[in-house]
């Protein structure tokens, strides 16, 4: 009932927004036969309230800081609506007045206590299910270093992701980072990292040359990329923990680009460009062996592999039918099926596929021949170019990369809000700026960086 009402209201609102778009721009930027995602994707967002207390003044200050990061993370998750009014009747001890919370529109109530322990703090967090009147539905204990420590924000992001997992049984994306290339005015680029909430912008490389296509390893500890630092575009891998870099040299010559780690953690897929074509190859970087051609088309380019979470298939770019299009095929080689729209009268071009870590959705960017801007599109892996959603309709948007929650995408854009990285929520259509004022390229969203933290720091709940 409530969901329907909200749905209808949102649909009306979105129609109103759509109606205000300049007709010409909308017509130009929309891809024929593709539905605009904003017009029908409506999300219901449960209300939540969060209250952390401190055991002492120092812990209270910490509680406020943790709360600020958590609230922002939960907002960024696009899954909740925060109810700011706090009932005066709430106390961490005693019973919870579920009826009152329900009246306040709170579906989920989070309470917790922060106390000092050793050199840092411990958060005991409780999740209460207001709708079903179930107190302490989930409890957890999290270690958080002091707020000036380097790991502070990531530790809190881990808590936020745990809350998402408690409520939705789905992965979050707060505890993650985004690698991207920041381009200088000289055309050179360096790899940077930024947290999922736009904090901790950090430069990783200082090569003073062209560097492209950063790709996260499956465990989130390494980055592969193509750098021109030797004079030729070659593939390198940087261990983010040790800072050690090595060339991944599968003896296939120069022009090695668009790396992508296979989920088995052993292999890497990449494209090698030589003579009159680009081929996709597969190589075991652990044993340094077993180079295999996965896809090769005479006089054409097959490149930008993006591998499915189970490792069995890949999406990739190919111009085998003249225009760059997105196809799906087995990572062992085989038949390629198109997933991007193809219209003989008005051929479009589509680029930069990324396979969702959750489910079978593929994001990419593209445009029809006569439109100016590139837009982000979503396709079903088995859709054969028929089931598509267009996520953006404003400005120029390129190189989408999925967040570990399989719901959000980061992309590089030139939009009304500026130039830089933006995060789009495929659930609600909301787009927020992540890093603006920089010339950015080829972002890649890391896997969840929370897992190792949780294993080592979280103790079983009481």
């Amino acid at each position: 009932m409530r969901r329907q009402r909200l749905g209808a209201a949102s649909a009306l609102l979105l129609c109103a927004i759509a109606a205000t778009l300049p007709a010409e721009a909308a017509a130009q930027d929309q891809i024929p036969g593709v539905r605009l995602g904003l017009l029908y994707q409506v999300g219901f967002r449960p209300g939540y309230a969060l209250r952390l207390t401190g055991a002492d003044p120092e812990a209270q200050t910490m509680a406020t800081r943790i709360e600020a990061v958590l609230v922002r993370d939960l907002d960024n998750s696009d899954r909740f609506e925060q109810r700011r009014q706090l009932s005066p009747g709430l106390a961490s001890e005693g019973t919870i007045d579920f009826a009152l919370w329900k009246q306040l529109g709170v579906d989920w109530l989070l309470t917790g206590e922060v106390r000092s322990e050793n050199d840092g703090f411990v958060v005991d967090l409780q999740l209460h299910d207001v709708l079903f009147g179930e107190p302490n539905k989930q409890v957890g204990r999290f270690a958080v270093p002091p707020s000036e420590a380097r790991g502070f924000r990531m530790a809190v992001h881990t808590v936020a992701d745990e809350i998402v997992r408690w409520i939705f049984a789905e992965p979050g994306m707060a505890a993650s980072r985004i690698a991207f290339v920041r381009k200088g005015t000289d055309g050179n680029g360096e790899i940077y990292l930024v947290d999922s909430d736009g904090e901790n912008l950090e430069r990783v490389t200082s090569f003073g040359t062209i560097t492209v296509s950063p790709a996260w390893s499956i465990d989130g500890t390494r980055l592969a990329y193509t750098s021109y630092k030797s004079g030729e575009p070659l593939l390198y891998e940087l261990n983010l923990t040790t800072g050690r870099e090595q060339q991944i040299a599968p003896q296939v010559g120069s022009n090695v680009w668009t790396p992508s780690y296979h989920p088995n953690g052993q292999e890497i897929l990449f494209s090698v460009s030589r003579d009159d074509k680009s081929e996709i190859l597969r190589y075991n970087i652990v044993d340094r062996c077993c180079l295999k051609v996965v896809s090769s088309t005479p006089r054409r380019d097959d490149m930008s592999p993006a591998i499915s979470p189970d490792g069995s298939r890949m999406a990739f770019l190919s111009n085998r039918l003249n225009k760059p299009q997105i196809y799906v095929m087995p990572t062992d080689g085989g038949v390629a099926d198109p997933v991007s729209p193809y219209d003989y009268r008005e051929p479009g071009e589509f680029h930069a596929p990324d396979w969702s870590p959750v489910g079978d959705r593929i994001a990419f960017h593209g445009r029809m021949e006569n439109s100016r801007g590139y837009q982000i599109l979503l396709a079903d892996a088995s859709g054969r170019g028929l089931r598509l959603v267009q996520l953006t309709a404003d400005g120029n948007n390129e190189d989408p990369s999925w967040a570990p929650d399989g719901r959000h995408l980061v992309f590089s854009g030139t939009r009304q809000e500026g130039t830089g990285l933006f995060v789009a929520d495929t659930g609600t259509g909301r787009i927020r700026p992540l890093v603006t004022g920089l010339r950015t390229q080829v972002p890649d969203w890391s896997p969840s960086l929370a897992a190792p933290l949780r294993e080592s720091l979280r103790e079983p709940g009481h």
Partner: protein
Amino acid sequence: MTQRWIAIPVLALGLVMAECGRRPPPPPPPAPSGPTAEELERMRQDSIARARARQDSIRAAEDARRSAEEARRMDIQRTRDRLLEMVFFDYDRFDIRPDQERGMQAKIAILRANPQLRLRFEGHADERGSTEYNLALGDRRANSVRQFLATYGIDAERFTTISYGEERPLVNASNEDAWARNRRVEVVITAGGDQLVPVAVP
């Protein structure tokens, strides 16, 4: 008859002798010891003229040599310019455009006359598409130039290629003109450029 012919010299001798008997003639005016001032002046002028002429001819020879050298230098420069002319491409294409073939034929003539030349072809793309696809496209373009030359019998081993994708635009703007200029292959001489033999190319 014969008597008369003899009488004339005798009479003439008598006359001469009669003359000798009179007072000695006045001393002749002193014979000039060198050229006159006039002559000197003329000689001086002549010598200057001769020196000038000699100088002029040296200078003329020098000028001729210089202008020949200059002409050769210009020829080399012109040859070099034709060799280094960029090759431009259509959007998302890497085949040699008909309007670029004249430039390619010039490259062929120059490369045939200069077997010592080694070149690098640097492929570029405009900003449209994707960063990664444009790297491949730039590589296709550089290779396309190399292959075109190979089909005319120029050894492809003389050339290396590299792609800079969309990362090194010639014109930093987002419009058709800028894009058209940015879709290009640049030519860099990697060896043999200092012994360039000029070639007259159309």
